[in-house]
């Protein structure tokens, strides 16, 4: 009997193939995949990005393809900030019939899933994945934010300007974003004549940074550049202060997240970071409208009414996708991919058009610091 059961179930595996039926959109609905981490170490940031997309979906619920109007449906798949999970998540989205995929927060998962989207000829638009590898050598991956080489240079410039001569770099092993950004900062900083006095790595899920911080302390840097997930950030900051390290702690875009202030408390004061967007300086009317509308949306979803940059990028990724669909006038993957290469959009984070790699041509970054438990705009840096 047991065996019969086994056999039956084994056969069931095949049945869905003939039950599923054709997935072509006839009911005037098209699917956009949301490929974001909603759990795991990047769960927090991922969720903020998703909020931006959901909001965009409420603002622009439909899209014109040729002369037909389709309702846009967002299908979300959680990649758990894990490269292995990312592959299954990507497959789920393709199975769900996504025409274009948005995301992900965290470069590692985007890189991991890139090939899958390319195979299925489903274009993907990353919102805040800043690692070059996401789009490099993958025609189907685009991104609406700036890249780490740029971000690294920005922070290096800032550090030098401020007269920080000695820097320590702390990066997370196995995390493309952290290791990559760290490496780019290091290169730029040394090119600008700075000295890297200490270069430390820690492992994913490591929560005790005393040992590496002790080394950093011994090297006595002026600034510590520690790009990492918002999960590790507060621990790093607090333990650094606990060891009596007084150097300025700087990082990249991921750190613009309230949870850091909540968890690190007063230790977080003076942290410096670069980011994509600042609600104090709307780039254009689209941005103004977005800031107003989205603040309400945040409150409605009982979130703090501070607009995270990644939400803005999520919004931009969504409208870029729509623009591409309208431009292409069809839902065929290759056509959409072509359309994306030429599309030009006025996004809330500035004008968006893609270069040959599929990266948005952006050359502006906002530098912020934490002051009295708030993110405060410091300056606008642009590097040519």
């Amino acid at each position: 009997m047991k065996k019969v059961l086994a056999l039956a179930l084994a056969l069931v595996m095949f049945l869905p193939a003939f039950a599923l039926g054709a997935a072509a959109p006839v009911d005037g609905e098209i699917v956009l995949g949301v490929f974001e981490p909603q759990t795991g170490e990047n769960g927090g940031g991922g969720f903020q990005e998703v909020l931006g997309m959901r909001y965009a979906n409420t603002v622009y619920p439909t899209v014109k393809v040729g002369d037909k109007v389709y309702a846009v449906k967002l299908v979300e798949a959680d990649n758990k900030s894990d490269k292995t999970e990312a592959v299954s998540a990507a497959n789920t989205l393709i199975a769900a019939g996504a025409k274009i995929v948005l995301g992900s927060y965290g470069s590692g998962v985007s890189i991991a899933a890139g090939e899958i989207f390319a195979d299925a000829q489903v274009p993907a638009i990353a919102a805040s994945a800043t690692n070059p590898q996401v789009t490099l050598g993958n025609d189907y991956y685009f991104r609406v934010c700036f890249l780490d080489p740029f971000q690294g240079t920005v922070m290096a410039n800032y550090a030098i300007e401020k007269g920080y001569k000695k820097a320590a770099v702390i990066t997370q092993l196995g995390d493309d974003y952290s290791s990559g950004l760290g490496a780019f900062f290091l290169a730029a900083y040394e090119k600008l004549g700075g000295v890297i006095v200490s270069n430390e790595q820690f492992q994913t899920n490591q929560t005790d940074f005393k040992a590496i911080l002790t080394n950093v302390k011994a090297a006595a840097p002026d600034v510590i550049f520690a790009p990492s997930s918002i999960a590790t950030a507060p621990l790093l900051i607090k333990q650094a202060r606990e060891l009596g390290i007084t150097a300025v702690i700087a990082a990249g875009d991921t750190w613009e997240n309230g949870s850091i202030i909540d968890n690190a408390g007063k230790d977080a004061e003076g942290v410096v970071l670069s980011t994509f967007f600042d609600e104090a300086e709307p780039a254009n009317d689209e941005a103004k409208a977005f800031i107003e509308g989205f603040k309400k949306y945040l409150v409605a979803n009982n979130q703090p009414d501070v607009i995270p940059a990644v939400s803005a990028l999520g919004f931009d990724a969504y409208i870029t996708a729509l623009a591409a669909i309208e431009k292409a006038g069809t839902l065929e993957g290759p056509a959409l991919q072509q359309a994306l290469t030429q599309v030009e959009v006025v996004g809330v984070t500035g004008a968006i058009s893609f270069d040959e790699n599929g990266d948005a041509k952006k050359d502006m970054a906002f530098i912020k610091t934490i002051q009295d438990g708030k993110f405060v705009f410091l300056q606008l840096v642009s590097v040519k």
Partner: protein
Amino acid sequence: MKKEMKWLLSLATLALVVWALTALEGRRNEYNMLYTVLQKGMILAVAAVAMNLLNGFTGLFSLGQAGFMAIGAYVTAILTIPATKLPGVYYISGVSQAILSFRGWTDSLPDWFQTAFPYLALIIGGLVAALFAALIGYPVLRLKSDYLAIATLGFSEIIRAIIASPQLNLITNGSYGLKSIPKLENLLVTFLIAAVCIAFIVLLIRSSYGRAFKAIREDEVAAEAMGINLARHKQYSFVISSFFTAVAGGMLAMYMRSIDSGTFKIGLTYDVLLIIVIGGIGSVTGSVISALLVTAAKEWWLRFFDQPLVIAGWEVPLFRTGFRMVIFSLLLMAVVLFYQRGLLGHKEFTWNVLMPSNWRKWLNKKQAGGKRHA
């Protein structure tokens, strides 16, 4: 049931499967989920059967699977990533000249070689893993059950650390992982490779050596007294199992297209363990069936556990991210505690299943029912 009848049934099934697979191939995008489940399931089936050879048939409780899969995956990946893409993959620290020139050479070889090379790479990966197995097997296999388990588990963690270490950036790309790994041509090929691997293991188990393995599982002292050289036979089982585990790892790399050391955490070993426990420790067919079922359930059928479920406006409680895995762990515990033989226990699936007489036998046995263990 008649022999011819069985042959007929087997052939029919084979034909059906081949047909289904080719049919599926054409319409991949429509049935993407089924496609990926079958592919991944089959790959895990190889790993599961290999683990079963060791744990189920030789009675060596090893938890090194993830480590050997990692070796296989990385060797295969490094050998098959197109030379042109290598610089892009090793974008931070650059790629070792040795690899670059070697790959340049392989890419310059004629087409027939290019088509054969990925499979060759799988085998090479297996051989490398087998070598490692031989090296650590000699000392480690002397250990008793749970010490062996923890030692092999440790080994797989060591492998992972070595792979992720910045010192090896030029070869394994350290913490950045490898991508643009060519994919397995199609489903049929995947099944074919899996079938070959599993077939060999089955033949081995049925051979005199297989019997010796079982003897060791049943009673080491007696086995040794029957003139079976424990050290050598354990070594055989360990090395061969590792070889196929690594092949599975290589296939996994080709299926995922991008890997990093994180892919090969202890969790991966536990996933394979879950499969053989459910399928029945000591049953090959059990492992294969349960590999497909578990993968399907995990990736597909039970996904809805992770999404909030609303029936007629009423939101069902409990349903949110992570629920699926809770269900799975409960399932595992249930099998371990109440159903230790798993799907098939020591037995194998045969067409006799279809004979009512066997059901009756089975029922009677249930009534007699003393619980026995795999």
